[in-house]
């Protein structure tokens, strides 16, 4: 973005600054990267509970008689299998199979789908879906509704204990990847058991004017549970441990879902944009695949670092850093398919030196059920 353009702000921007958060430019958004420190915030989410402002995420809503047909054609996943009140992870693809974005679909009613999309892709996603509607001629409406929502994520094993204090909705009735529309603090809210950390999780969508009050009330309700406000730094280390993809790193316009290991989020028994390319790649077998790495030698693999297999440059790191939970240095990377199997020793070029690492299957961390 050009320096003359102002950074976009969530409704909680002043709250973050008052808390002394370190703010960064995240894809054009002025967002908190940390409050007390990334490691402390990371542990709060793994061991207790953390609160994130994720209001930068975008929303696109599809309503009308053929809302299902449009969503089902745009998204890779089995939208037909969704129940009302269910959420589903999916890819939005180009015809060539690369990612427009990865999204969460929330089925509100058979004629209303609510999509939560990545902040930096929201306009692009909206235009992609709106163009698809036009070309298919489906009878439904595509709306860009990001300005109507603030989104707070309460994440961690104690998340339910905190959120339950704020709502009459029995959270035990909302299973993982389900949601309910109800009241939080007496205000209309969408309460979703979804998240991006690998822990138990709730995401609360509320009107932006109520974000400040809700933020304060969640912190108050969580005080006895050691809740911490958490920034995008911890969000990234948590999702990396959980092996979750981040647009611009593990997925993007030049990567297809077969390469990214996301075939389980694809329903090949239906038509969708990009299906032919995905089928071709799946039948032929991808030439490269997403893989996990654990560093063996001293050093941290960072995004973009080159990986050597059998003495030659063969892949690259997509996300890497220290894992505070495992106390290891971990990474996700692309490797030639034949090398992307667990137990291979490879080398990461770290600042001019080749350092040993071993391949592993992500996720690096899985919570106990």
């Amino acid at each position: 973005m050009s320096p003359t353009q102002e950074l976009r702000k969530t409704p909680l921007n002043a709250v973050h600054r008052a808390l002394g958060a370190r703010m960064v430019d995240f894809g054009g958004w002025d967002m908190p990267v940390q409050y007390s420190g990334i490691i402390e915030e990371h542990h709060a989410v793994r061991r207790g509970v953390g609160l994130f402002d994720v209001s930068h995420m975008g929303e696109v809503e599809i309503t009308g008689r053929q809302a299902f047909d449009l969503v089902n054609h745009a998204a890779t996943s089995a939208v037909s299998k969704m129940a009302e009140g269910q959420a589903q992870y999916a890819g939005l693809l180009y015809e060539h199979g690369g990612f427009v974005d990865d999204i969460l679909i929330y089925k509100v009613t058979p004629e209303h789908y609510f999509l939560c999309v990545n902040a930096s892709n929201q306009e692009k996603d909206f235009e992609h879906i709106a163009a698809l509607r036009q070309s298919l001629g489906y009878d439904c409406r595509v709306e860009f509704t990001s300005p109507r929502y603030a989104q707070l994520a309460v994440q961690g094993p104690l998340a339910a204990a905190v959120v339950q204090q704020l709502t009459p909705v029995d959270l035990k009735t909302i299973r993982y990847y389900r949601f309910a529309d109800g009241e939080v603090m007496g205000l209309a809210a969408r309460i979703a058991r979804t998240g991006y950390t690998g822990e138990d999780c709730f995401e609360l969508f509320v009107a932006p004017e109520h974000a400040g009050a809700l933020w304060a009330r969640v912190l108050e309700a969580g005080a006895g549970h050691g809740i911490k406000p958490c920034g995008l730094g911890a969000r990234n280390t948590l999702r990396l441990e959980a092996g979750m993809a981040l647009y611009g790193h593990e997925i993007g316009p030049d990567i297809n879902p077969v390469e990214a290991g996301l075939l389980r989020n694809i329903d090949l028994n239906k038509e969708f944009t990009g299906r032919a390319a995905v089928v071709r790649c799946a039948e032929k077998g991808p030439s490269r695949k997403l893989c996990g790495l654990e560093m063996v030698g001293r050093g941290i693999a960072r995004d973009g670092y080159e990986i050597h297999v059998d003495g030659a440059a063969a892949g690259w790191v997509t996300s890497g850093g220290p894992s505070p939970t495992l106390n290891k240095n971990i990474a996700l990377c692309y490797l030639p398919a034949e090398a992307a199997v667990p137990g291979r020793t490879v080398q990461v070029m770290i600042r001019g030196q080749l350092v040993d690492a071993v391949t592993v299957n992500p996720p690096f961390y899985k919570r106990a059920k």
Partner: protein
Amino acid sequence: MAYPENLRYTKEHEWVLVEGDTGTIGITDHAQSELGDIVYVDLPAVGTKIGQGASLGSVESVKAVSDIFAPVTGEVTAVNDALTAAPEMLNQEPHGGGWLVKVKLGAPDEVGKLMSAAEYQAYIGA
């Protein structure tokens, strides 16, 4: 945090403490604060000769890696090995226990051109 008067500071946020012909080198409180949780430190071996402004090694936080530049010319005579096991000391005591290396000064005149504590604080807007 206070910036000790007896240290000299660089624009790249390193400091040097001169005692006789030895210079002790570290990074400033401002630098550690900007980096956040430091998890890894890469330092040169004893005996390495380094020119002023050359890379002395690197410091990595959870988020990023940063070069450390030598504030003075010299030969490394000691390395703070405690940082290998406890890199967080760089966050906790940047101007003390978190020192990085000691060097035998090769060009003592260089020190006078570095910033004083007051100049450095003005530089970072503290």
